[in-house]
């Protein structure tokens, strides 16, 4: 059993880790843009704000499996194939990026308007406000957002298993369900549960630890 579980666990961790990184790289800047281009914010651009909102809503509406199939050509272009653990990182990142953008947006919006106003009164530039005020002030909330993203991606990665992504979800379905190895299915699911619990616990602890408010 272990010889099946260990590689699957590693595949899941690999998929989740890389797609978390990529989805944050895409989603975080989008989240910042969503906030600052809003009306009465520090870089008011109503049209850009509308377009971004539209794109993000459309992307978030796609059922994940359909999105995976739709980005096959992109996966092929980026990693040279459409199935396999590495290839799955592409749709996972794309699916999670708009989610990340929304989570980051709501965290950044929690930052007290007063401190932004204060920064403006001291002659801060837009980029200084983003890097020195918005992000540090929102950090505890951002950490929770990233935690949420990782957990979401664990769920997505299990689904990705269905079209050849590998990982624990794939193991649970293929061996546990189709081949009636119930014990394997249960253990796979248990590991996923433990993973989610552990990450949530860790995320909560870090957020509390760094929060000085």
């Amino acid at each position, binding site marked *: 059993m272990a010889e099946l579980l260990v590689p699957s666990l590693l595949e899941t961790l690999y998929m989740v880790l890389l797609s978390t990184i990529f989805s944050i790289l895409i989603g975080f800047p989008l989240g910042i843009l969503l906030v600052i281009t809003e009306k009465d914010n520090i870089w008011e651009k109503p049209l850009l704000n509308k377009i971004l909102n539209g794109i993000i809503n459309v992307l978030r509406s796609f059922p994940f499996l359909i999105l995976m199939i739709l980005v096959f050509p992109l996966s092929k272009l980026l990693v040279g194939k459409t199935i396999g653990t590495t290839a799955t990182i592409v749709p996972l990142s794309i699916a999670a990026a708009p989610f990340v953008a929304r989570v980051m947006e709501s965290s950044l919006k929690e930052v007290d308007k007063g401190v932004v106003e204060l920064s403006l*009164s001291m002659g801060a530039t837009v980029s200084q406000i983003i890097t020195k005020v918005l992000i540090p002030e929102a950090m505890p909330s951002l950490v929770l957002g990233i935690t949420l993203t990782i957990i979401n991606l664990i769920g997505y990665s299990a689904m990705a298993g269905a079209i050849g992504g590998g990982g624990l979800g794939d193991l649970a379905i293929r061996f546990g369900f189709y081949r009636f190895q119930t014990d394997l299915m249960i253990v796979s699911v248990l590991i996923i549960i433990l993973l989610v619990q552990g990450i949530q616990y860790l995320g909560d602890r870090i957020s509390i630890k760094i929060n000085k408010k």
Partner: protein
Amino acid sequence: MIKIENLSKSFKDNKDEFWAVKNVSLDINRGEIFGIIGLSGAGKSTLIRCLNRLEEPTEGSIIIDGVDITNLSKGDLRKERKEIGMIFQHFNLLSQKTVYENIAFPLELEKMDKSKIKERVDKLLEYVELTDKKNAYPSQLSGGQKQRVAIARALANNPKILLSDEGTSALDPKTTKSILALLSKIRQELGVTIVLITHQMEVVKDICDRVAIMENGKVIEENTVENLFKQPKTKTAQAFIDTLSSNFEEEIINPEDFKGKLIRLSFLGNNAKQPIVSKIIRNFNIDVNILSGNINKLQSNSVGHLILELLGDCEEVQKAIEFLNNENVHVEVI
């Protein structure tokens, strides 16, 4: 130094246009503490925010040291803003940064080098008497301490003007005094011109040289504080002065300065018709000294207060107090 000419600011809400500030002209001199007082909604907050263009004026001009602020480009405005410090009602400290980092913040924006920042911040910490709180976070500070940090931060760039947007409104009376004393000291020692808005007459009385009274977006009276108290021109000004009377007695009357026993009598409405003071002088072997008296109008009734000093034999004084108690007058020994 600051010349505000015909300044107006309107807010558009769908099709309705609302003039928060209408045709305001003021001259503020170098080194003075200028107060703008008004009730909430009078437009004072909008006015002070126009001075560093946190609000964009709709019409009119603001000239600071010969430079028209209203025409500055974004880059020039940023430079000018560094010359104008600002403090706020709710302090606006960065919650995730220490006291030290908060004060260093404007200097970091300037990309000043670390050792110079340290030198400057340490000096500022000393100036506002918070050196021991250097590594504390805002959540660990009292309101007064938070405002001191905010003041130190506002002073970091050596501004020529300090704007205070209800800087003492969230503080208790005692802390308010200490913050006002600090602002006074800043004006005196650093020559900073201070423009403050407030709804508390006490603030105006305590530290302002001149004051403008705002109502419905307009300045309805501009006066030196002295003349305002001597001869207010408008009803609003009088009303603001009246808010002070009940606060006066606490300040001037300190029981330790008097030999006799101090008591505060409170009368409600009709109770005041009895000649109680002369009665206690006649009936008991004591002397009475009237220290202060006032009447406060409440929603349904009026409450009168009288502060007396009773001089004489301890026993006689005690009897007099008992007598007063029996006369249905509330007696409080101070």
